[in-house]
């Protein structure tokens, strides 16, 4: 069964500092990979996704993520955090096209706090 692990429940960074949120997955093949952000009272917003090709993907709001097959990881990064980035971040995996299923499996999330 597929699963997603986000080892850090809560991370606090200073505004302007760099950020890396960790995500590890368990899946029989290479799944599709996603990062979502959820602000209080808001739905999930897709930051970026990886289907295939270049293992470094760029997303919205200055975020990027790197897929490392050997480590089954898909870590999210941002070079300089803004106070508005404070939110909860979710990593998710889904079966690749043709698998007959489009069910997303989410990690438990990492809450990001930003110190001014």
């Amino acid at each position: 069964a597929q699963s997603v692990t986000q080892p850090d429940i809560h991370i606090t960074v200073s505004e302007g500092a760099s950020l890396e949120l960790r995500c590890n997955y368990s899946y029989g093949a290479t799944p599709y990979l996603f990062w979502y952000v959820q602000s209080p009272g808001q739905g999930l917003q897709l930051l970026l996704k990886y289907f295939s090709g270049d293992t470094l993907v760029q997303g919205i709001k200055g975020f990027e993520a790197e897929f490392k097959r050997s480590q089954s990881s898909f870590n999210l990064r941002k070079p300089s955090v803004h106070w508005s980035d404070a939110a909860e971040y979710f990593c998710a995996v889904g079966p690749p096209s043709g698998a007959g299923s489009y069910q997303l499996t989410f990690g438990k999330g990492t809450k990001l706090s930003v110190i001014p």
Partner: protein
Amino acid sequence: DAGVTQSPTHLIKTRGQQVTLRCSPKSGHDTVSWYQQALGQGPQFIFQYYEEEERQRGNFPDRFSGHQFPNYSSELNVNALLLGDSALYLCASSLRASGPYEQYFGPGTRLTVT
């Protein structure tokens, strides 16, 4: 262009009761998925509707059922509510032709079961 809308925003029910949650997809979308997000957890897939049929289902009991209407809107019904059903219920819509992963999420309905 309205995004995904859900109603109601909040709901309080008693154990054993039944509840119906509603979702209107983003304009142009034809597929609706429902997720349950318990406190401190990530969203869990309940089921997905396309062409008014349930296409996929996650690991949820039959107490959870749904419906999709011809205008693509959807309902989630939960019978015989348990305390453990308290959660944020998220609806996500997508256009099948664009790929099922191009999902847009609504703000959710917060269900509290007492």
